[in-house]
């Protein structure tokens, strides 16, 4: 039997998949997919501290996540370094600090996530976060597209690039945060990366791209949860979800040959 808490967990995981598909599509076009790995890793030190001092790991993760996001935004602005350069620095640093802080017995859960029944409050907060992500992406969709094509043209069309980048990074982090409990710090970013890459292979215009990414993402999470439910071991769904989305990507490679 499935408890209401577990149903909340399933629904939120699927909603997270939609947000991840959308955010991932734009991250792919912005060529900052790897930033999703960095951003999810930035959560790890916070989760570690939370386990260490016994408070809610998501709260700890959220704190370092948003501090890290602001840091990345500032670094980008001030140093003019490409996002991928930031990846190298922050990625390894936060993974190392996080792994050192997290008690050994909690490390696997912190890194790979765990399927948990959710309280109604947690569920509603998660749903609100996902809706906010979707809303912001659609609200700023045109500005994002223009800035992708040409930042200077976007600026000439009165798009405020600086603010737009911050909004996008925040929405990005919020998506990672929603996926954190379920996918873990190591894999939350993967669901932003892989379905978008699959969607890109299947689509030729922006709308198709967004829809295909979301479908690939939702299907991976749905199938992953289903398979986990039938596995005899108490397995975390995160790795299975990621493996399935990688499989989808492999299948999308067949399209060229067809």
């Amino acid at each position, binding site marked *: 039997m499935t408890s209401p808490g577990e149903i909340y967990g399933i629904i939120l995981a699927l909603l997270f998949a939609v947000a991840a598909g959308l955010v991932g599509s734009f991250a792919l*076009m912005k*060529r900052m997919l790897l930033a999703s790995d960095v951003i999810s890793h930035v959560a790890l030190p916070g989760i570690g501290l939370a386990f260490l001092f016994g408070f809610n790991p998501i709260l700890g993760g959220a704190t370092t996540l948003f501090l890290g996001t602001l840091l990345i935004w500032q670094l980008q602005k001030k140093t003019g370094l490409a996002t991928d350069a930031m990846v190298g620095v922050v990625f390894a640093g936060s993974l190392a600090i996080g792994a050192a802080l997290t008690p050994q017995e909690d490390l696997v859960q912190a890194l790979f996530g765990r399927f948990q029944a959710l309280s109604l409050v947690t569920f509603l907060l998660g749903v609100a976060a996902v809706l906010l992500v979707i809303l912001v992406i659609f609200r700023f*969709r*045109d*500005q994002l*597209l*223009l800035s*992708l*094509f*040409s930042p*200077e*043209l976007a*600026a*000439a*069309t009165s*798009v405020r690039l600086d603010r737009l980048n911050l909004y996008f990074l925040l929405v990005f982090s919020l998506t990672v945060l929603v996926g954190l409990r379920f996918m873990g710090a190591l894999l939350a970013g993967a669901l932003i990366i892989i379905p978008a890459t699959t969607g*890109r292979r299947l*689509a*030729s*215009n*922006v709308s*198709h*791209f967004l829809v295909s990414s979301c479908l690939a993402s939702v299907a991976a999470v749905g199938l992953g949860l289903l398979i986990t439910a039938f596995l005899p071991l108490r397995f975390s769904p995160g790795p299975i979800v990621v493996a399935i989305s990688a499989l989808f990507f492999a299948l999308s490679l067949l399209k060229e040959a067809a």
Partner: protein
Amino acid sequence: MANPVPVLSVRKLSVSFGQRTVLEDLTFDVARGENLAIIGPNGAGKTVLLRALLNQLPYEGAIEWAPETKLGYVPQAIAADLQLPLQVGDLLAAKARLLKLPDKAVREAATIVDLGAELLATRIGVLSGGQFQKALITFALLGDPNVLLVDEPTASLDELAQEHIYELLEKLRLERNLTVLLVSHDLSVVYQFATKVLCLSKGRPCFGSPRDILTPDNLAAVYSAVPKFYQHVHHHDVKE
């Protein structure tokens, strides 16, 4: 041609990046309907001037546009990301939505530039240089600007495509009474289409009619070497 209210009035404009001064003490006016060519060697600050006029750079001095001026900007051929799943129509529709233009605005702008439905459904990465330029001009025309700022529209085009783009800009200027500010390398084009010329150079900037500015002496001063072009100076008529 005396025009009481200039569309653009620039006074003592200076732009610096750190220690490096790119533009210094630049003063000029542009009247409505004029085609101002901005010329000068590489690094003289042509693109910087356009970006200052677009208010995208910090500057000193005054840049005043006439009230109700609407700017359209055609950037230098951008290195478009070939991977973007973005069609010309996507891009135009995005701008139209941002400016809250009616749905038909994209079709109207496309018609003016003679950009067919086929091109609207073409991915940006596979456009030819000329098609790309046309798409950029269509993009700039959305929102019905009365001033077009055009940066080196022909940098990557063959001669036929170049001529086509210049003729298109000239047609737009005449038919829609647009004011055009055009950065160009091509002095024969400048001579053919410009009504005023602004030359930027390390030495002294100069401003005036093509007949006055495009003299061998002046060009020698602006560019370190005299371009071959000057021999043709006397064969053309200047429209003013």
